[in-house]
């Protein structure tokens, strides 16, 4: 198992190097002089020259990249061009807020999605199943930004139950962003649980359990669910991508102080060091989450566990 983990960690290195080249070149793919673009057209030449020198823009590209990379592996992404704060400090301030929001979304989507999937699978094609599955299909197709505005309209503007923006402490601020972010993952988890349960229920060992005369509750929860949960674990992991996408939009709408909103602001303000830092943060988190899910999967499924012994 350790061998497997180490091998997977080593495999991350070339991928992250590739992403770092991409993140680095964002600044240089942009048409025009980066320094001019950052400071505006009316910047004095001396200031432009200083910025070029401080960013190392006067050196050849490969040299610039290696300088940037050697600082980046030490978590030094430079300073924000707008606030002049160290990018890594900004990320450290904002990342926990994104993690809290994503964590609460995952928690609630598991809490709601899995029971819906089980109920749908136990009574396939019932009214409840149909309603749940149409709801799940709609949940996947709804743009997070639209849904967020609808929630604000209903629960904030009309009913006045929850605050519509910010994170000033208190659970109330979590409610609407969590609802928005959890929708897609709840829908996917419900669909996945249903199809995994349906597949397990048709297996021979479930028929055996039935013919032994076990009660249905014990069959569903003890025999079927345990086996069906393995693919569900992967879908929770696959939600990481959807959650990051959702975080960018959700945080922007609810003025949530996370790294999703941070990158949108940085792109708008052409604050390239921040954009680069946040992209690397997203890539590393995404890679680690996927790795964690694969390991968990191997741990849960004895068939895979044996393979990597």
């Amino acid at each position, binding site marked *: 198992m350790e061998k497997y983990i180490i091998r997977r960690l080593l495999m991350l290195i070339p991928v992250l190097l590739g992403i770092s080249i991409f993140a680095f070149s*964002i600044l240089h793919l942009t048409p025009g002089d980066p320094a001019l673009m950052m400071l505006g057209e009316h910047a004095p030449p001396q200031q432009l020259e200083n910025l070029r020198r401080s960013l190392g823009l006067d050196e050849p590209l490969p040299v610039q990249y290696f300088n940037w990379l050697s600082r980046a592996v030490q978590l030094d992404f430079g300073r924000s061009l707008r606030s002049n704060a160290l990018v890594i400090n900004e990320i450290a301030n904002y990342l926990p807020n994104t993690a809290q929001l994503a964590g609460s979304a995952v928690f609630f989507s598991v809490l709601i999605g899995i029971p819906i999937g089980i109920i749908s699978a136990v009574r396939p094609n019932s009214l409840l199943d149909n309603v749940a599955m149409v709801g799940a299909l*709609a949940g996947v197709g709804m*743009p997070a930004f639209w849904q967020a505005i609808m929630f604000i309209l209903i629960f904030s503007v009309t009913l006045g139950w929850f605050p519509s923006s910010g994170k000033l402490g208190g659970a109330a601020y979590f409610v609407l962003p969590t609802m928005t972010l959890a929708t897609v993952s709840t829908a996917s988890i419900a669909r996945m649980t249903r199809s995994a349960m349906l597949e397990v229920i048709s297996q021979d060992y479930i028929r055996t359990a039935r013919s032994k005369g076990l009660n249905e509750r014990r069959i569903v929860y003890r025999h079927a669910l345990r086996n069906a949960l393995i693919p569900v674990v992967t879908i929770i992991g696959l939600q990481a991508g959807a959650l990051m*996408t959702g975080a960018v939009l959700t945080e922007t709408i609810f003025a949530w102080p996370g790294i999703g909103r941070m990158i949108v602001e940085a792109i708008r303000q052409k604050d390239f060091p921040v954009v680069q830092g946040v992209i690397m943060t997203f890539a590393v988190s995404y890679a680690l989450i996927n790795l964690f899910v694969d390991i968990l999967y191997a741990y849960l499924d004895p068939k895979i566990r044996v393979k990597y012994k």
Partner: protein
Amino acid sequence: MEKGQTVTFAKKSILKAMLRNKKAVVGAIILLIITLGAVFAPFLAPHNPIQQDLRNRLQPPSRDNLLGTDQFGRDLFSRILYGGRISLRIGFITVGIALIVGGTLGLIAGFYGGILDHLIMRLMDIMLALPGFLLALAIISALGSSLENVMIAVGISLIPTFCRLMRATVLSVRENDYVEAAIALGASDLRVIIKYVLPNAVNPLIVHSSLTMASSILFAAGLSFLGMGAQPPTPEWGKMIADNRAFIRASHYIVTFPGLAIVLSVLSLNMVGDGLRDALDPRMKNL
């Protein structure tokens, strides 16, 4: 003759399977209405979509303005019809980019294998190291905000899945004895690709295209919502939601209806895609 019969038979059974699938039929009808509305927008739209009428701002739905008006007094129904043109065009162009580039790369990787395969697939791994929307967002940050750049960015972000699908199809087709036989008989690479590989790749690619088009429309609307895509006064659905957002207290219709338009397009594409998948390739059901 015999071959022709089997082909028509297969097509008929696909159509039958699709018609039996209620969700797919409903999806296809919605999609058809949206497409017709978009194609014939110049004839169907009662007003000019960018014509302002400041005396007629933020009106609720009425006989003259079926879905009401926005903060500049523009007719929402006309704007949504024209918005359909943009969203469908984005869907086709982005999927077209991904299909051509990704499909070709996958074909090369699967067919020639070796170092080419290795290089292409590692490149895809790098592209998949960021979730698609974030990759598109990062590309936009370099290219600058415009509708064209959104299409390029979203198109690029969709390449990896098409590449992997194509490669997997090529690898499975190559396993067949008849392909080995054709190669042994001296068939050229091009002939093997056209005669054996592509026909087998068509079905999975169609299914994947329709499902991907749904996410592409969502991505593009999201980017426009963030202000990184369509610029005013373009009647793009995501941009309309962003611009009208500040006025929801006065009139919620201006946000509700463009959002419903996105939901209906995405939903119908997903329903048709799911239906196609079940009809064309029962093996893919659980993917």
